[in-house]
């Protein structure tokens, strides 16, 4: 039925166009010039689609036969959409005839055809996102007020609004100021004038997309991907409007309408929305338009200059303290329809009911949804909360998860700071910084003590446990890709870290999940995907793909890197490493020293001495920089036998890693309390004493295969 209506609308428009062209020819002759003023593209839509420049009425007649050829009637959706395109081209022809002989067919407030210079000027803010979208409003709103409210809602978001038909009179009637500078552009009262905005989109593709005229495929994918336009069509939607709408859909512009008779929804393309008040929200979601938040609505300042502010007890209005009462901060991934963007709820009493200087529970849950959102990004977002909340003037945050503390100063309170403002800050910052993955965000702030207890124990803690468990089970084998990290290349030009789930960056600060999130948020940034499809030797952790990546990102300085060996092509070190391990030949094992350790090691070298020969992005077989967390990993120098090789560590480091290390030793080799077999500076700082100690404790490294 929908298809038939489009066919019928398109046939009607074609008929009218053919008639108008013939009339014009009989009146002016075939050689009469035709075209729009101030454009180098003749009839821009027809030229973009076909690559043919129409300059005379005679050529226009020929063009019509081309248009007719688009109007196939196989009764598939594609035929209907192509008829839509044909309808749009017919509209352009009809509009072009209005400009014959230098006529000025449009007058204030309508613009009609827009000059090329307007497109060049518009194109820049469209590319930068300063104009986040282009709305095409067509027909008459149910009431003038509803129409104007809709226009204003787009205007407030910076969206360029074009108007066609009755809506123009409605806006005029209510005295709405319109004009190009105000980003409200009335095109014309006839439905065919809608072609002037299509003409803008297509010329933008030629100018900004370097699309070759006539390359219809590229043209359509450019408009679909790069021109964030959409159509709002008020009922009644007749066959002609429907046919024009089909053209819009073919360009990738969704059509949202309150029409409910004789129409079927086409998901993502033709969308029914009975309530005009919802047009804005539905349209933005359908076109995936994100509005930048430039202003955070809170009564105090927000800037990194306040990050280091400390609120002392005497200056404090109220305090939320996770170490005493139930508190929690959490990011949760939700489905798109479960989140209402920018909804901020306070559940429980607000700050002004609290006694001066008192202590309370607080839980805030930031619920996010997005087509590219993944639960793995939750902790990455969550870790930023500390920084966000600290940047609020007069608010202080320490700790994380369910062990945080927030203080609100008297001054901030006096200025009007309340619980919901925490939500405003979290909302704005999460939306801005994680724009690439968060499409919608809402915040729930709980101050009710019972609710806080519930959120903490029933929602947050299980979520943290799940995450930790996921980290535990995340292994190098269980993922399809690794990531490179070249954040340190400013210091170490040829250094490349390959970050895997079981081997975090050697700085200790970039885990596989961090690298993944960095890549997702900044696809051209320092972390790039490294595939692992072409293994050379899985025991060494050698892959052709990894070698290629390392060669590419080190600008050719490195050719081969293994993930699990310190003897053969070990991973390079930049200089940021938390620890260095180095081969200790007399005990047939390795010694690890951490940056904080200032003393001598049984290698006869201190940490700085070892660092000087390991850093700088060079490969030093037998020596390798790494993160502390890597020490307990099952992949730690796996190729040489794994953690069993560790013979010595500074005492403090040993204590830090003992739990994980002993667990791994138990799982891999059935050794209990492995750290008791490992020497430290209180036991030995020379190889001889160390070997004696290891012998006494029957350290497994002594009987392993020689390392060199």
């Amino acid at each position: 039925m929908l298809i038939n209506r489009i066919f019928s609308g398109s046939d009607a428009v074609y008929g009218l166009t053919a008639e108008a062209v013939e009339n014009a020819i009989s009146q002016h002759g075939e050689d009469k010039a035709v075209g729009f003023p101030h454009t180098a593209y003749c009839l821009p839509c027809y030229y973009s689609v076909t690559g043919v420049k129409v300059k005379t009425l005679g050529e226009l007649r020929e063009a019509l036969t081309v248009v007719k050829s688009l109007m196939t009637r196989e009764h598939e959706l594609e035929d209907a959409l192509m008829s839509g395109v044909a309808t749009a081209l017919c509209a352009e022809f009809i509009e072009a005839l209005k400009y014959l002989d230098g006529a000025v067919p449009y007058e204030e407030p309508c613009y009609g055809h827009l000059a090329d210079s307007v497109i060049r000027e518009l194109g820049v803010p469209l590319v930068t996102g300063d104009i986040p979208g282009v709305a095409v409003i067509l027909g008459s709103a149910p009431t003038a007020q509803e129409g104007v409210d809709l226009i204003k809602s787009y205007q407030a978001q910076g969206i360029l609004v074009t108007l066609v038909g009755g809506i123009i009179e409605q806006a005029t009637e209510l005295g709405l100021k319109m004009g190009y500078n105000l980003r409200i552009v009335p095109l014309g009262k006839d439905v065919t004038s809608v072609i002037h905005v299509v003409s803008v989109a297509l010329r933008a593709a030629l100018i900004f997309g370097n699309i070759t005229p006539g390359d219809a495929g590229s043209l359509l994918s450019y408009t679909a991907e790069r021109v964030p336009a959409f159509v709002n069509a008020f009922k009644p939607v007749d066959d002609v409007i429907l046919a024009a709408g089909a053209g819009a859909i073919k360009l990738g512009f969704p059509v949202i309408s309150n029409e409910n008779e004789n129409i079927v929804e086409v998901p993502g393309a033709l969308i029914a929305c009975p309530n005009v008040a919802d047009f804005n929200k539905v349209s933005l979601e359908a076109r995936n338009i994100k509005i930048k938040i430039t202003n955070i609505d809170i009564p105090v300042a927000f800037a990194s200059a306040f990050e280091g502010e400390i609120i002392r007890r005497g200056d404090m209005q109220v305090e939320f303290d996770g170490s005493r009462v139930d508190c929690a901060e959490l990011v949760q991934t939700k489905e798109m329809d479960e989140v209402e963007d920018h909804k901020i709820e306070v559940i429980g009493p607000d700050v002004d009911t609290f006694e001066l200087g008192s202590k309370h529970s607080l839980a805030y849950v930031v619920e996010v949804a997005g087509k590219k959102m993944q639960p793995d990004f939750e902790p990455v977002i969550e870790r930023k909360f500390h920084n966000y909340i600290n940047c609020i003037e007069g608010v202080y945050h320490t700790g994380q998860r369910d062990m945080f503390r927030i203080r609100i100063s008297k001054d901030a309170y006096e200025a009007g700071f309340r619980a919901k403002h925490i939500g405003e800050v979290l909302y704005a910052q999460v939306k801005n910084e994680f724009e690439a993955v968060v499409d919608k965000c809402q915040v729930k702030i709980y101050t009710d003590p019972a609710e806080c207890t519930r959120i903490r124990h029933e929602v947050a803690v299980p979520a943290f446990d799940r995450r930790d468990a996921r980290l535990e089970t995340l292994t190098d084998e269980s993922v399809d890709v690794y990531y490179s990290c070249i954040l340190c290349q400013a210091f170490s030009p040829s250094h490349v870290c390959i970050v895997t789930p079981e081997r975090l960056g050697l700085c200790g600060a970039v885990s596989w999940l961090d690298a993944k999130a960095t890549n997702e948020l900044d696809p051209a940034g320092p972390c790039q995907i490294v595939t692992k499809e072409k293994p050379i030797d899985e025991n060494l952790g050698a892959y052709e793909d990894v070698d290629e990546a390392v060669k590419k990102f080190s600008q050719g300085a490195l050719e081969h890197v293994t993930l699990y060996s310190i003897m053969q092509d070990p991973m390079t070190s930049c200089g940021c490493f938390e620890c260095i391990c180095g081969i200790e030949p007399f005990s047939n094992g390795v010694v690890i020293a951490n940056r904080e350790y200032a003393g001598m090691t049984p290698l006869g070298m201190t940490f700085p001495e070892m660092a000087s020969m390991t850093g700088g992005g060079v490969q030093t077989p037998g020596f390798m920089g790494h993160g502390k967390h890597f020490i307990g990993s099952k992949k730690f120098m796996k190729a040489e036998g794994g953690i069993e090789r560790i013979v010595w560590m500074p005492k403090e480091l040993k204590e830090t890693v003992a739990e994980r290390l002993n667990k791994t030793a138990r799982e891999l080799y059935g050794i209990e309390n492995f750290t008791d077999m490992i020497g430290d500076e209180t036991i030995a700082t020379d190889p001889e004493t160390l070997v004696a100690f290891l012998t006494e404790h029957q350290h497994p490294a002594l009987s392993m295969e020689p390392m060199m």
Partner: protein
Amino acid sequence: MALNGIQIFKMTPKKNCKECGCPTCMAFSMKVAQGAMDISACPHMSQEALDALSEATAPPMKTIKVGTGDAEYSLGGETVLFRHEKTFVSKTRYAVKLDCCMDAAAVDAKIEEIKKVDYERIGERMFVEMINVAYCGEHKDNFLDIVKKANETGRILVLDCEDADVAAEALAVCAANKPILNGANASNYEAMSKVATDAGVVLGVSGKDLNELYDTVAALEKSGNKNLVLDVTGASVKEAFGNAVQVRRASVKDQDRTFGYPSIVNLTKVAAGDKYMQAALASVFTMKYGSIVVMDQMTYAEALPIYGLRQNVFTDPQKPMKVEPGIYPLNGADENSLCLTTVDFALTYFVVSGELERSGVPCNLLISDAGGLSVLTAWAAGKLSSSTVAKFIQEEVEPKVKCRKLVIPGKVAVLKGDIEAKLPGWEIIVGPREAVQLVKFLKDMQA
């Protein structure tokens, strides 16, 4: 090619005898691999191992020493073509030219001019380290007089002289200070080599093109003289640059040891009489492979940029340049002037002090030891923390400065509270994130 530490370790006696000065054989091996120690420091190596190792660990480019005592400099010894790969180890040295056609007054004036440039920059004394004295073949007595005068300055001499007898006379005056005798070529190298060897000085070799130079060096090496520098000057600027690059590349990249010597580039020949062109070329040859650059003059106009450039280029790419921690009063600041603090990373210091000077506001710039790292890096590495700042201020600043207002870098606003807690009596102000905003920041602060 070079051996790594593990390969060297395998050849050591593995006794951990400590006689080399290292606690373990492993530590020794790593140092040898780095080039920090010579394999001969181990008394227990087998001859076989020594032979194998000294061949493999010998540097591609020789380190040639000139001068004596405090004025002893190393030339050459480079292992890479680009400084980001590894530190360029031997700085370019600049020589100002005197020649035997100058009269005594002109010579004296020139020597006075040379002495005038003498200053310190980031812990390094900047002055003309070498003087070139050229013999044209005619005014021998004048030449010898000039050699004497120049030698008295204590600067290292580079004698341009192709006459072996005259050279011997000149060396009789100055050999003790270990100058360079630059004058060997395809036709006189045997005689010249003997003069240089007898006097125990470095010999400079030139050739009409690279092939002739190559052959002459090969012949000298064969005769046993490996104490050489190569004068790569050539007939034109283009030739000089081509020679300097190709000689360095042949030795460092292609391991052709015949060209493994430092170079001399004489700008007074390829850009005679054009001091600006000489300045431009001095810069080019500092970047690319001039060990000694000879110029007509070195006034402050040339010195300030060229010594600064050299100081930058010959640095460890891993270790940022540092300035001395301390109080730097700017724009006539006194003990009551505002205090601002930042890190000791030289680049940060220069940018910040430059902007502060531009502001014209008297202030004390406080530089604490942050390991030579930039603000954010130092903060991340724990080298710039509330404790380091507070300790520095209490120990170094409080006794000397009365002002109790401290501006901290905007990038470490996060430290404000902690610093306040640790420095009672101080008002801590968060400054701008970028140095360029300092002028406006100070202006606004005063308003």
